[in-house]
């Protein structure tokens, strides 16, 4: 059984309440349909807060570590899914992947994985148990990867000129900021390692939890608010625009086949 400090209990309650509120907002405001992976990630956070509380209080330290490893793995997988979901919203404006983005997006993923693997290979944290070392390194790897992917996505969309919708941008901002902060925190944890006192690990974990709560609060406010109102396109103009689009496509098809003449 692990002893919980006052701050541990505060962050547990705050995190549970903020995540619960966010989950309700996602369903009430109808955002869950547009962001199923993000909704799943927030629901996982709610469930994890409940389960972790009982595991910490009633299970052995090793069981808690195993649970922590499993929960962290699920959480990181879901975060990657959220990244993919945001990428689809940004890079598939008309329903399919923009053709000038596909290759660059694949390069971004490969490069991010390579850099994250190399940095994680360099990390050599000290911990009494093997599983603790793997948790520290695994968390560091996923944070570096997600940070690179989020920043890369911002750079790529800015370079090719693809706009962000309001709620997509807010989700990405929160996720990106949290991941970047985690890279700093986990760098410290990987350097210091888990020693007998666990002083720095505990402090940095508190900072990590506080930053997550701040990000989740940001999501609560931003996802509650509606996106700026748009004007409805008159039916006649809609038809004209689609005709215009067909004309542009035909023009381009002809121009591209010049070589064959």
């Amino acid at each position: 059984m692990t002893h919980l400090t006052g701050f541990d209990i505060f962050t547990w309650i705050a995190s549970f309440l903020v995540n619960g509120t966010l989950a309700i907002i996602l369903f009430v405001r109808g955002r869950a349909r547009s962001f199923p992976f993000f909704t799943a990630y927030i629901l996982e956070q709610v469930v994890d807060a409940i389960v972790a509380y009982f595991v910490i209080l009633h299970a052995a330290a090793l069981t808690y570590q195993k649970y922590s490893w499993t929960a962290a793995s699920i959480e990181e997988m879901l975060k990657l899914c959220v990244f993919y979901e945001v990428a689809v919203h940004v890079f598939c404006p008309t329903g399919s992947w923009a053709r000038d983005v596909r290759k660059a997006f694949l390069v971004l993923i490969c490069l991010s994985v390579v850099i994250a693997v190399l940095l994680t290979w360099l990390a050599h944290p000290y911990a009494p148990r093997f599983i603790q070392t793997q948790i520290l390194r695994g968390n560091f790897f996923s944070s570096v990867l997600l940070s690179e992917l989020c920043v890369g996505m911002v750079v790529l969309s800015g370079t090719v000129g693809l706009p962000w919708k309001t709620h997509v941008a807010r989700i990405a901002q929160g996720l990106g900021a949290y991941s970047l902060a985690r890279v700093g925190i986990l760098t410290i944890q990987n350097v210091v390692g888990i020693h007998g006192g666990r002083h720095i690990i505990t402090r940095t974990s508190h900072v990590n939890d506080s930053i997550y709560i701040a990000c989740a609060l940001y999501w609560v406010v931003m996802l509650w608010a509606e996106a700026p109102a748009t004007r409805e396109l008159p039916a006649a103009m809609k038809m004209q625009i689609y005709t215009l689009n067909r004309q542009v496509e035909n023009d381009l098809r002809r121009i591209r086949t010049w070589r064959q003449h």
Partner: protein
Amino acid sequence: MRNLYFVLLAVLLLVALTATLIRFYLRHRRSAETSWQDLVHRLVWIDRDAIATIALDAVTDEGELRPHGDCFALDSGVIWNLLGGLEGLEVIERNCQVLVELATYLQRFYPEALVVAEQLRLNAREIEWHVSRLKGAAQTGNLEASFANYAQRAVVIYYMMTRHVLTLYDQAQFPGLPELQQAI
């Protein structure tokens, strides 16, 4: 030693990522605050008659490829002079970016115009690609051979794009149309 490299590289990566994120965030904010007038003022003047001459050498007014024997009469030298060389193409490239932002500006009010805005964005990217090929050819000394093909193609796309954007704004009855007509 390994720990030292780890810390150095991790800090370096963190600083680089944060700086990049802040730079692009500020750029995005500036772009979101840009007014219609600011965008139009960013368009660089280009001889529209010269653009039309180069484009209509390859396509008809309706955008159809001219019949065999009636097209591609202009040689590289003439196109080079009409366009003002690579600098002229770079002006087109910059104007294309502004045109995409103009389409996005319209999209803010009418999100259903997204498909056309996306098509215009892709066109601009295609022109960028043609210009980059020409820049590459200039570096390897093969500019003359590539110029007529890539430059004329980029000019035709630009010409069609400007016409489509004007039509789009005309259909949307957007108040800035006369200003845009003058600028492009």
